[in-house]
């Protein structure tokens, strides 16, 4: 037990050394952070400014540069939990299906009679047919439009659920297709949110899916949740529609195939537009902020070739007509087409500030969200409050360490010094493991580390108390130490496994700060077993071999 082979000694000390090395960057947090930011910037931009070069030189490239991520409660920033309205997509799917269905049904008008879309829930198509006795045929025609679901779990089933009641044919999405669509919607939303957040270039944002239809967004360093919400809460669906008419009644009947859309700039003015857009935001290749001929902020955009062709053809055929630019169901502007616009370039201008034009350009470049998103939870923590918490946490940790070390050394003398070294190494190892895998340190996490300081000593206490007993039982020093370690082992393992269970539960069920706390706790359990058992024993063995004591006071 007390014969530790050389390779094991090297391994233990080597692990401690690696831990120290990887924890070190955290001592120079700001400097390393500037270095890391500069490296990332340079990589993205492809060239280096003198300031970036200076920031990069602030920390040697060959040293580890991973830092512990500071949680929002420590650094300040915004946290949002958004819910994606996945059902929105069902409606647009149904609206897109209607022309095809109408055409297919109309082709057999002499069998099934006249076809009319009846009012129904938005995620279903209700179609009235003239000859209810021929419903079977109508269902068959509708089935002809269905395609197999493109997902693993739904493979083999059809994407449409078709039923009939009386003279009404009801078409909706099947369960399997809904599941597959929801999944796609969330994936797309995640991707677009990520692009939008990346566009503004904040550091280390967290964007994760949570549960079936939720997205968790955490952006450190951003001023407020409102700013973040303005950025990601906007659907940013840009479409271009022919204008049918203009009026002041929001409830006027728009006529078949038309929609009524309010004007952004003139309250009370409503435009009647054809529902199908000529071109939409998906055809954009670029958008950037600029100024219009009057020097007002504007956004310039460019279409891809298909979009440009369609836009060119439409404008050529409709010179003199009104044309509406619609963003998220509001008419931004409705200019008169003076000329064909063949180049596929255009400009959106209207009452906006420079900031707003910047944001709109970002949103258009990143693409539209497939569905609307609402926010269930938002938290903003100011950077000063975070800094206060760091300072308070750091001070408390130092005082706690001094108290604990004083108490252990007073209780166990030299062996107490060994245990104290082990505890301090333990804290350093926790920080280094967290840095290496980019874990997030939260305020409860700091408390978790402090608690670990208390419990890490526990393993040593169990061992030392056992050694004391063995000594009292009259054993010789080496035998007592040997037995002390052996006998204490099962209690230490059991005690740590139970804490581990609690930490795992927190990790899997918890969110936000609780999760951060669980990560700290789990890492702390593993490192504390290492330092309390292996490192302490190694120190004791070194001491035994140098001093060869005949008696031991513990």
């Amino acid at each position, binding site marked *: 037990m007390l014969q530790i082979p050389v390779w094991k000694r090297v391994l233990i000390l080597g692990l401690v050394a690696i831990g120290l090395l990887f924890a070190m960057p955290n001592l120079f947090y700001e400097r390393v952070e500037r270095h890391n930011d500069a490296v990332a910037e340079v990589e993205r931009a492809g060239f280096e400014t003198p300031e970036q070069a200076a920031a990069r030189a602030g920390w040697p490239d060959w040293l580890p540069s991973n830092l512990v991520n500071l949680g929002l409660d420590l650094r300040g920033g915004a946290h949002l939990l958004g*819910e994606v309205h996945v059902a929105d997509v069902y409606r647009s799917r149904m609206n897109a299906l209607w022309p095809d269905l109408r055409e297919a049904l109309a082709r057999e008008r002499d069998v099934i009679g006249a076809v009319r879309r009846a009012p129904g829930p938005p995620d279903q198509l209700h179609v009235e047919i003239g000859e209810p006795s021929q419903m079977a045929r109508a269902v068959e025609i509708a089935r002809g439009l269905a395609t197999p679901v493109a997902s693993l779990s739904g493979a083999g089933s059809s994407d449409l659920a078709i039923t009939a009641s009386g003279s009404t044919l009801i078409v909706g999405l099947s369960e399997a297709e809904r599941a597959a669509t929801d999944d796609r919607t969330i994936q797309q939303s995640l991707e677009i949110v990520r692009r939008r957040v990346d566009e503004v270039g904040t550091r280390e944002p967290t964007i994760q899916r949570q549960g079936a239809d939720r997205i968790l967004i955490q952006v450190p360093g951003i001023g*407020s*949740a*409102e700013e973040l*919400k*303005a950025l990601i809460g906007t659907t940013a669906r840009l479409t271009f529609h022919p204008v049918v008419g203009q009026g002041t009644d929001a409830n006027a009947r728009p006529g078949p195939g038309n929609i009524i859309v309010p004007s952004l700039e003139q309250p009370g003015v409503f435009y009647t537009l054809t529902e199908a857009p000529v071109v939409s935001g998906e055809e954009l290749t670029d958008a950037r902020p600029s100024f219009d001929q009057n020097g007002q902020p504007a956004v310039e955009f460019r279409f891809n070739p298909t979009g440009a062709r369609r836009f060119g053809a439409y404008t050529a055929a409709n010179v003199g007509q009104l044309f509406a630019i619609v963003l998220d169901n509001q008419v931004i502007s409705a200019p008169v087409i003076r000329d064909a616009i063949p180049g596929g370039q255009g400009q959106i201008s209207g009452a906006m500030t420079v900031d707003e034009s910047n944001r709109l350009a970002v949103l258009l470049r990143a693409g539209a969200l497939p569905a609307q998103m*609402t*926010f*269930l*939870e*938002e*938290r*903003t*923590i*100011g950077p000063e*409050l975070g800094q*206060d918490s760091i300072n*308070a*946490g750091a001070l408390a940790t130092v*005082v*706690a*360490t001094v108290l*604990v070390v004083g*108490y252990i050394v007073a209780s166990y*003398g030299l062996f107490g010094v060994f245990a104290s070294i082990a505890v301090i190494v333990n804290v350093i190892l926790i920080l280094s493991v967290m840095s290496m895998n980019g874990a997030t340190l939260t*305020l*409860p996490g*700091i*408390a978790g580390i*402090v*608690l670990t300081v*208390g*419990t890490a*000593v*526990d393993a040593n*206490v169990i061992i030392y*108390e056992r050694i*004391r*007993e063995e000594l*009292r039982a009259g054993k010789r020093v080496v035998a007592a130490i040997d037995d002390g370690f*052996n*006998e204490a*082992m*099962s*209690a230490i393992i*059991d*005690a740590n496994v*139970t804490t581990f*269970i*609690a930490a795992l*539960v*927190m990790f899997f*069920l918890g*969110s936000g*700060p609780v999760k951060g706390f669980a990560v700290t*706790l789990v890492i702390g359990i593993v490192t504390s077993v290492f330092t309390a*058992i*292996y490192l302490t024993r190694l120190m004791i063995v070194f001491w035994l071999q140098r001093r060869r004591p005949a008696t031991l*006071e*513990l």
Partner: protein
Amino acid sequence: MAFRLKLVPDVTRINFFRWQALTTGISIAAMIASVILVLTMGLNLGIDFRGGTTIRAESSTNFEVGDYRAALEPVVDGDLSITEVFDPTFGPDRHVAQIRIGLANEAGSVTPAQLNEYEAALKQVDPNVSFAAVESVGPKVSNELVMTAVYAVAAATLGILLYIWLRFEWQFALGGVAALIHDVLLTLGIFSLFQLKFDLTTIAALLTILGYSINDTVVVFDRLRENLIKFKTRPLIDVMNLTVNETLSRTVMTAVTTILALLPMLVLGGDVIRNFVFAMLWGVIVGAYSTVYLAKSVVLWLGVKRDWSKPVKTAPGERDDLAGTPFKDMP
């Protein structure tokens, strides 16, 4: 002889069962009192569990809560509560108010326009005020968070129960879990008594208490098992007393180090984390009590098998009193 700080003498012979009726009775009475407290006074649930908005307003000058209330009441719909936060870590020019606004609408969140309105209203009475943190939780999430919290505590208790059952005997598992329920109930009780804010981080503290308290109990059980093997014929109550006495020094030592570690966090760690640290500190103290007085009473009451000789595989030169400790060969 070198100086050694020993809070517990080397050898103690305290009869922990002398006042068993009293000590167990205190535990049971405290548990019942806690349940009554929670049922009558309820818990001061944070917005995590109840939904709503909290705003932490900080100002460099002194303010009156009444003024803030008067300023906010006309612009806030939903119930409003304002408390001033005092903390030893605040300097003389730091004054903090915690403003809580109940759920006003289904979405549960305040709009940016509302937030600006609130800030403008406060600036009228206190030009130095600013919002340090704003948190807003909708009713949908808060209901789920309540369920998740309940699941988490239940799952952790169940997991620990299973593990102890596998490693020891079912009586030990029940004894350990009885101690856990005791600790959780008493923590809920004190949070209800002082109406401390009960939120997600309190749940984290509660789970940590579970881990810590069972840690304590397991160490005692481990020694109890060892002693049961060693002293096959002594009455169970004697073996238990011996065990608690043998481990008393360690129980006290660990409790004191943990308390020493947590106290500075409680005093210096700032008000944001105070309730969290308080819950843990309270759990450590209650956990030590339940280990010494409750867990083993349950085991004693349930009885435990005395014949531990079955799994012994006495290899030559091996001491048979270690047979029940599967980890003894660990490095």
